[in-house]
């Protein structure tokens, strides 16, 4: 038997040792016939955990994964490998080709410390080598430990979860996908003042099979799609890009079809031109009417991140940062006005952070974060739950790839809509004397404890005396988190609620990108400082 990877590779690759990827993926999986029921992974996983136990590990899991991704970028009607505006991409190489990656990661606790190792060579010998390597790493790490890892208990599951979807994007002919994108850019280019137009779509499919020493066998098949268009206009040296993006979603090909890129093209082009000719917004305190497409990022930065428990206790101190929220703030901190209600949700259909289970094998759930303006909950995983005295994990452990180690990642963090009959967008505008209506994501920056944020957007309209008057430019606003939400004066009704997927959220070392969604209704925030970046 080969003893290391090099010897192993020299024996004509994995084909001689195991079933190849091609062999294993001849038939699509379904809820009735999940792949792991018939494939070899269950046996391989069980054997790996036996080995880990024999090596003295107190916990072990093995996560097999296959990730396929495809990104199409069209610029002025031409498929290009150089993307225009990025709409995520899920790790795909632009240009239409499919990136196909398959491998496994092993996580163990030995001597009270984590060890992790991964490999793209999925075969029994290599699995044995990687289990041994992960164990050796944990053992070596113990010399610097100050405390043992403590995991909250979790029941054992033997389940299959698949993203609800109508059509597998990888089964759709290239021509059909391209037609949607090229039609959209052609429509944008009908406006002769447009410098260039782009349209993008990214698809991804993650297959995961998790086997844990707690007795779980969890298979998941997760589909993601993101898409959008952009129009760039230049007028007298002012270059502005207007973006239309319905965001990202756990969904199949149908998400692209429903996005109606072509139907929004004329408006996007006209607004790009108008924006390139717009006057700068005047600086000062203003009321802001924020649409859900804009609020998604604000919620992400100043609610979702500060309520991640690993940040609060210092795990991210060297990179993403800590948090202004302290453990002692629970049930006490006035996060915002009584209109502010926020919950975490791994179950929302279409949410980018929606799954059946996390990578600790914890079932997806929904729980409150802020109720009537008061902080009541945090995001936890098995490793961090004990910090807040909880005995169960909220299910927030994720790796973005089989290659990477899993750690605490945010779920969909959603702002609840107002009650039926709450002010509509039009009524909010009518209630503003001097303000700005903001749509889409733009510039964003936030300090390492999430106090001080500066946000832009993609399109801005001046509001004077209850009416939208004109488009403006050079818009940013500054927010100190709790002051900003304290000034929340209206939240739109349930029928105005939308969720928007993020293009990527970097955290961790080595850094990993995550794709949560954040939903809200339009909101009215009073007295926000506008324009400091340009003053």
């Amino acid at each position, binding site marked *: 038997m080969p003893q290391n*990877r090099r010897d192993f590779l020299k024996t004509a690759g994995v*084909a001689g040792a195991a079933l*190849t*990827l*091609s*062999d294993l993926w001849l038939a699509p999986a379904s809820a009735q016939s999940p792949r792991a029921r018939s494939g070899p992974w269950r046996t391989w996983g069980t054997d790996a955990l036996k080995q880990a136990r024999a090596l003295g590990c107190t916990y072990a899991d093995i996560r097999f994964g296959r990730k396929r991704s495809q990104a199409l970028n069209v610029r002025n009607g*031409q*498929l290009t*490998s150089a993307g225009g505006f990025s709409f995520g991409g899920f790790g795909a190489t632009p*240009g*239409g*080709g*499919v990136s*196909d*990656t398959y*491998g496994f990661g092993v996580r163990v606790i030995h001597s009270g410390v*984590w060890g*992790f*190792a*991964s490999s793209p060579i999925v075969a029994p010998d290599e699995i044995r080598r990687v289990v041994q390597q992960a164990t*050796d790493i*944990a053992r*070596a*790490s*113990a*010399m*610097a430990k*100050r405390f043992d890892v403590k995991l909250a208990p979790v029941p054992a599951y033997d389940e299959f979860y698949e993203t609800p979807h109508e059509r597998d994007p990888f089964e759709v*002919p*290239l021509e059909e996908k391209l037609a949607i994108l090229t039609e959209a850019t052609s429509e944008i280019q009908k406006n002769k003042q447009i410098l260039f137009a782009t349209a993008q779509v990214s698809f991804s499919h993650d297959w995961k099979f998790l086997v844990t020493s707690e007795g779980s066998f969890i298979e998941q098949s997760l589909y993601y799609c993101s898409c959008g268009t952009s129009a*760039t206009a*230049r007028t007298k*040296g002012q*270059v502005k890009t207007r973006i239309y993006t319905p965001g990202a979603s756990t969904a199949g090909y149908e998400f692209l079809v429903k996005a109606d890129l072509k139907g929004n093209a004329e408006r996007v082009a006209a607004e790009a031109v108008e924006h390139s000719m717009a006057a700068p917004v005047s600086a000062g305190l203003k009321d802001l009417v924020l649409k859900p497409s804009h609020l998604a990022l604000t919620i992400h930065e100043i609610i979702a991140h500060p309520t991640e428990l690993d940040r609060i206790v*210092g*795990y*991210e*101190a*060297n*990179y993403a*940062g800590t948090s*202004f929220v302290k453990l002692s703030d629970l049930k006490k901190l006035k996060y915002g006005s009584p209109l502010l209600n926020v919950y975490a949700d791994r179950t929302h259909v279409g949410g980018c952070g929606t799954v059946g289970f996390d990578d600790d094998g914890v079932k997806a759930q929904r729980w409150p974060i802020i109720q009537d303006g008061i902080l009541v909950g945090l995001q936890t995983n098995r490793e961090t739950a004990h910090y807040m005295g909880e005995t169960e994990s909220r299910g927030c452990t994720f790796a973005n790839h089989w290659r*990477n*180690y899993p750690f605490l990642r945010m779920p969909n963090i959603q702002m609840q809509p107002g009650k039926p009959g709450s002010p509509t967008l039009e009524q909010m505008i009518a209630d503003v004397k001097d303000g700005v209506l903001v749509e889409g994501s733009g*510039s964003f*920056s*936030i*300090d*390492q*404890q999430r106090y*001080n944020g*500066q946000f832009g957007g993609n399109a801005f309209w001046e509001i004077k005396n209850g009416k939208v008057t004109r488009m403006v430019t*050079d818009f940013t606003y*500054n927010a*100190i988190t709790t002051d900003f939400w304290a000034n929340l004066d209206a939240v739109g009704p349930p029928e105005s609620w939308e969720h928007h997927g993020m293009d990527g959220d*970097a955290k961790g070392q*080595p850094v990993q990108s995550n794709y949560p969604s954040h939903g809200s209704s339009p909101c009215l925030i009073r007295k926000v400082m506008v324009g*400091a*970046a*340009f003053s």
Partner: protein
Amino acid sequence: MSYSREEVKAITDKILNMAKADAVEVDFQGGERSATRYANSSITANLIEHDQQVNITVYYGQKSASTVTHQFDDASLKTAIEEAQALARRKPDNPETMPLVKPPQNYVPVEAVIDRTANFGPAERAAMVKKSLDICEKKGVVGAGYIPKLHWTQATANSEGLFSYFRYAEASLILTCRTPDGTGSGWAGQTGLKDVSQIDPVAITERAADKALKSQKPRAIEPGDYTVILEPRPAARFLSLLLTSMDARSAEEGRSFMSGKERGQTKVGEKLFGDNVTIKSVINHPVLRQSPIGEDGLAAQDVTWVEKGVVKNLYYSRYWAQKTGKQPTATQPGLSLVMDGGTTSVEEMIKTTKRGLLVSFFWYMRPVEQMSILYTGMTRDGLFLIENGEITAPVQNFRWNETPVVGLNNISALGPPEPMHTGEAYDQPGTAMIPAMRIEDFTMTSVSPAV
């Protein structure tokens, strides 16, 4: 885990032989990415990731398509090649398709693997962590650090007979120390070192711990324009903002700061920065020792981007160079980047500053307006007020809104260049030779109580 030249060539040759197209290109990447992360004075992650992939691009005239696979068995390669071929045949012609790069390419020989760095393993990293944590304990601070190591191989081969191969190993230690009461934070680090023995965990920990202790209980001062002394880490991040505008195509299409008055014109030849600003790419720089391979396998060459404030070159991709009748640059602006420095140490800069700020770290820099390269960001992990040549107090962090166009015109002192990563994260190559900089009239726009 490493891939020898022969092993990689065997894989790329196999793919080139299997593919049936007018032209084929294979980009190989593979190796080991390892890391040890610690926080709350204990290891939170220690890992070894092994990965490998080939990006296979096939061409039929002006049509092309790529697929990526991480499996190198015959069946998986065949599937990937056939997918690329089927996709390419169905794609429309791409007028931007370029012919393959032909051999021979005269790559500058770069030796970038030192055995002790290549073999730097989890036990040695844990020992480094222990050394660091013992100092943190002694000084009464909480350490959170990161030790990434890359031992990576990249190669490009094509059906014209080109084969380029580059292997490197590098490591870093990046550390943030915080005081237990959460009122002080300090950063120190060394990045992108080809020789791991140059990492000094004791010096780094002492520096980060001292900064944390000295930065406790910062006071708020008014926003405004300040003289700032940027240590090499924030200087590297600030300089990196300029690189986003060095692309010739964006400039000639009229959508970047480097655009000229008319479409198709650029600002090459114009003096845009101070006399003390010279920025180059130096292939086979003795410290950086970065890849000598440029776009599509072209040999990377030394490039002077800015000389004494005058823009000398922009980056021309192969396609844009052909379209505009120029030579392709081959070297990306961030590759083997060197900014000329001076002889003024940070201590001397402090002594000769009447009123200013000493900046340890810049964080969360994001674009605000592209045509002026206006960015916003935060200070972090140690910000100190300087008055009459002395550090007088720790101060609360600032949000800034500034552009390198202004900043690089207002440099009043430069230190000797040292290796420092230019990116937000440290997981990819991106270390450059960067001096500490003193910049006048740097715009701080609001205060943050964040520590």
